[in-house]
């Protein structure tokens, strides 16, 4: 198959009468960093929820590496390689930073329940590897010193980073970042740009990004889709998007004649 990793074929999401997303179609190529932008309420997070199976599209389907993921449950889709972060942080509050990441590695665990009872070698080894892998990931985001603290005790910016680490721990093929820079100051956003570039490098990852911070989007995205009222109104390189009349109208409203 061509190097298209993820494709949405006219996916529609209807809540009662309202069409939150209306027959949206797009392709994301392997290794690409794509952006999904649009005014508030355009349906961006709904798209994410459809890609990850939290909502089942009322029409159309999502194709991952040529295979449709229609009707699959979120955990099956995650096991096929789509990982995500959430718009409003959904960490496991009363668990430690390390445990949050370890939960994401659960899908790769091979030992059975029984092994954990008898403390067999496969159990102890797998636990050790999992912990090592998690600590390495935390190191990348310099969170390893906080491994045993409760995730809810971390400052806001670090909680955002932990969500990304947790998503990475599922060994995804594509990672969906839902407003990762929200609430970050200028220097943190800059640091985030480098980190995203680095993880694309190290993990050969494809990234799909929802973001309002235009500097970040225009800075690192290779391809951008613009959504408004659930419909795709524009697609293309950052330069083309910046001066597309339709996009400006969508954001700033139509100039009074």
């Amino acid at each position: 198959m061509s190097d298209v990793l993820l494709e949405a074929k006219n996916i529609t999401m209807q809540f009662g009468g309202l069409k939150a997303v209306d027959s949206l179609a797009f392709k994301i190529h392997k290794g690409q960093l794509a952006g999904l932008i649009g005014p508030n309420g355009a349906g961006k997070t709904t798209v994410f929820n459809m890609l990850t199976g939290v909502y089942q599209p009322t029409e159309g389907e999502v194709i991952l590496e040529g295979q449709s993921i229609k009707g699959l449950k979120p955990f099956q889709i995650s096991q096929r390689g789509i990982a995500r972060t959430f718009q409003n942080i959904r960490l496991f509050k009363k668990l430690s930073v390390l445990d949050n990441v370890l939960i994401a590695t659960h899908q790769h665990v091979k030992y059975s329940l029984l092994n954990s009872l008898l403390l067999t070698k496969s159990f102890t080894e797998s636990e050790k590897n999992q912990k090592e892998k998690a600590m390495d990931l935390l190191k990348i985001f310099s969170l390893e010193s906080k491994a045993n603290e409760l995730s809810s005790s971390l400052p806001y910016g670090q909680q955002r980073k932990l969500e990304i680490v947790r998503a990475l721990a599922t060994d995804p093929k594509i990672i969906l970042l839902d407003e990762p820079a929200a609430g970050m100051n200028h220097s943190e956003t800059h640091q985030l740009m480098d980190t995203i570039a680095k993880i694309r490098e190290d993990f050969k990852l494809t990234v799909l990004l929802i973001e309002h911070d235009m500097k970040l989007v225009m800075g690192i995205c290779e391809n951008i889709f613009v959504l408004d009222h659930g419909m795709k109104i524009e697609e293309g390189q950052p330069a083309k998007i910046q001066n597309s009349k339709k996009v400006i109208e969508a954001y700033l409203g139509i100039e009074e004649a």
Partner: protein
Amino acid sequence: MQDFVQHLINGISLGSIYALIALGYTMVYGILKMINFAHSDVYMVGAFASYYVARWLGIDSNPSIGTLIILLLTSMFFCSLLGLLIERLAYRPLRNSPKLNILITAIGVSLFLEYGGQVVFGADPKVFPDVMKDFVLFSGAGIELTSFDITVLIVSILAMFALDFLIYKTKLGKAMRAVSSNPSVASLMGVNPDRIISFTFIVGSALAGVGSVLVGMKYPKIDPLMGMMIGLKAFVAAVLGGIGSISGAVLGALIMGLSEEMVVAYLSSTYRDALAFGILIVILIFKPAGILGKYSVEKV
């Protein structure tokens, strides 16, 4: 065929009794998202309050409208007082602690009232005073319809409309709904959540008081454990109808009453309670929020 009509009458009148108590559960759950297990025991205390006041006033053997009014007021007064006390002493300190803790406290209060009742009122069943003469409305061709069957139904329907009016049409109702969706924000808007919650308990408990007099009238045996089974059934009815929805409580109660009646009539009397629960489970699996309940989709 007339047996079926008689079963219909029995089922509806049984259901309307569950409705009166279910309304209390739904109101408290609607506002506080809390199962008030002690509600059925407030109902029991209402029955005993009427019993003792009737004996004290010496009116326990001359049934008349006057007696009905006096006993209704007594029962509503004592139940509301008790409801207020329970909320103030047991539930208020736990206002924002986890749901399970509030539930255990509610169970504690319920056990306290039941076993305390056995110590204070004595464990032996007592006879509820004659409140009103039951006159036969219709009798013939194998169908017996007495005034008691109808009064309970009318009162529960009236209570439903009154509550609907209170909650959806009055300023106080708006405040109650505000507290129900978000107590802290409601207090920012000048609503005093504590007073609203106390008011909810007063109304819910008063309803239980009305229920205890009407049920006492029809089934004149009262004992400290009378609230247990009928409370469980009424609670299940409230959940069946969609906990938190006023009309849901009455609908669920009628379904509960009718299903129990038909189960005993046409299937087997020994499996009465089991099948009542069976029906509940089937409905909840297909309608997870109950028949009229609004299924809140969790925002991701």
